[in-house]
């Protein structure tokens, strides 16, 4: 009983530091995923860009084809690179290596390095989610839009993306929860997130069990966001 009470007091003592650090974890996750989302829409549209309804002069069409191929190439290469190399390497490269060559990038706050690395990395994954959602919209929708005279841009904006949007909410929410856990990698550049804070506390031998409440905090966060996102999905799907 005595030992139990002591453990309890210890946990209470760790909590303020853990909760403060998990604020950084959530802040990093939320800002990086939001930024990545904006970037990924362009990447996804870039990856599927084609020249539609060729008309006008042959030279102009060639130019449009070349531009479209370039956009497609750049977007594909981006996704290939960021999904094909370890996130930790990308983080190290951005934090340790880039500032040597680009002094303006000498991060005074480790947060910014982590934010940039996660935004760039997550954008690649979200781009694939968005591309898959866009391409899952039945061809008939594009054909009907064409027959009604909508341009490619109008079709994407008014017909395809609003429908794809509903389909990509579940995988995007899933990705958010994955990123929340993956941000624990920033402990390796000593950014004070929940993982790094836990490690600091645990460096005192008497406090090594802090890992257990810290993992519970992660569980609470992931459970919280999972529940919120499920509600959101239900509400959106009920609209139809």
């Amino acid at each position: 009983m005595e030992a139990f009470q002591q453990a309890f007091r210890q946990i209470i003592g760790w909590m303020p530091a853990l909760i403060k650090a998990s604020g950084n974890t959530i802040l990093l996750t939320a800002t990086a995923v939001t930024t990545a989302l904006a970037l990924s829409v362009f990447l996804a549209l870039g990856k599927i860009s084609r020249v539609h309804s060729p008309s006008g002069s042959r030279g102009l069409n060639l130019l449009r084809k070349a531009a479209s191929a370039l956009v497609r190439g750049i977007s594909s290469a981006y996704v290939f690179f960021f999904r094909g190399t370890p996130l930790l390497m990308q983080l190290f490269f951005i934090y340790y290596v880039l500032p040597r060559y680009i002094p303006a990038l000498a991060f005074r706050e480790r947060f910014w390095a982590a934010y940039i690395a996660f935004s760039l990395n997550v954008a690649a994954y979200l781009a694939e989610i968005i591309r898959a959602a866009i391409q899952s919209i039945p061809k008939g929708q594009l054909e009907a839009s064409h027959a009604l005279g909508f341009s490619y841009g109008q079709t994407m904006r008014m017909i395809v993306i609003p429908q794809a949007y509903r389909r990509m909410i579940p995988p995007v929410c899933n990705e958010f929860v994955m990123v929340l856990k993956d941000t624990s990698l920033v402990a390796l550049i000593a950014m004070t997130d929940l993982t790094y804070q836990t490690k600091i506390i645990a460096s005192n031998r008497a406090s090594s069990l802090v890992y257990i409440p810290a993992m519970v905090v992660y569980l609470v966060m992931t459970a919280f966001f999972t529940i919120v996102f499920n509600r959101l999905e239900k509400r959106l799907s009920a609209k139809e």
Partner: protein
Amino acid sequence: MSIIRTEYLNKHFGALHVLQDINLTVDQGEVVCIIGPSGAGKSTLLRALNGLESVHSGKIYIDDTLFLHREEGKLVSAPPSVQRKAMLLETGMVFQSFNLFPHKTVLENLVLAQVKVKRTPKNEAEEKARGLLDQVGLNDKAEAYPAKLSGGQQQRVAIARALAMEPRIMLFDEPTSALDPELVGGVLAVMKDLARSGMTMLVVTHEIGFAREAANRVIFMCDGQIAEEGPPAQLLGNPQNPRTRQFLNSVL
């Protein structure tokens, strides 16, 4: 005066020569039905007419104006894109699978293109939409989402949506093939009304009864070619081509 005319349209899918020298004319006010076995190229022909399929060679005229001329798979001539789009809107298309926009209400389905493509003021577009919904017997469904409608109702909305753009000719690709038998009649009734009102129509269909009743001319297509054409009484009653006879025996 012809609304649509093609000259020597050809198209291949790999080794398959799916459209072979198709010369088709549809005059103003005519109702033309295309019948023929599966794989004959009926859908491909219809889709080529409004640019959903590219053709290898041939010419398409809309309202006696050149809409597309291709030779050897290359574009020879086409009107500038603004005019091209205006010409495209002279054909309205109705698909086998309706293809309504599921995230928009019935009314929005009819209004969207009027406002965004033709720049019709919104209140005018809505008024027109309600009139058309009346015409297809669905004025009480304006605020419903397509998923809440039966297939037959969805197809009638799709017809109204195409009509909202005020096309000169309506193209139908097997508009009743995806429907339960008891829903076919309602859609055919709307199409017959439309025919009576003077709309020019080109209809791919398996409904021989509809062709007999509503068409001025029936075309039998087979293996990528127009094998026979004529007034319904003649083509359906006394076909000359043995392939036509064989096909009619199999469906009647």
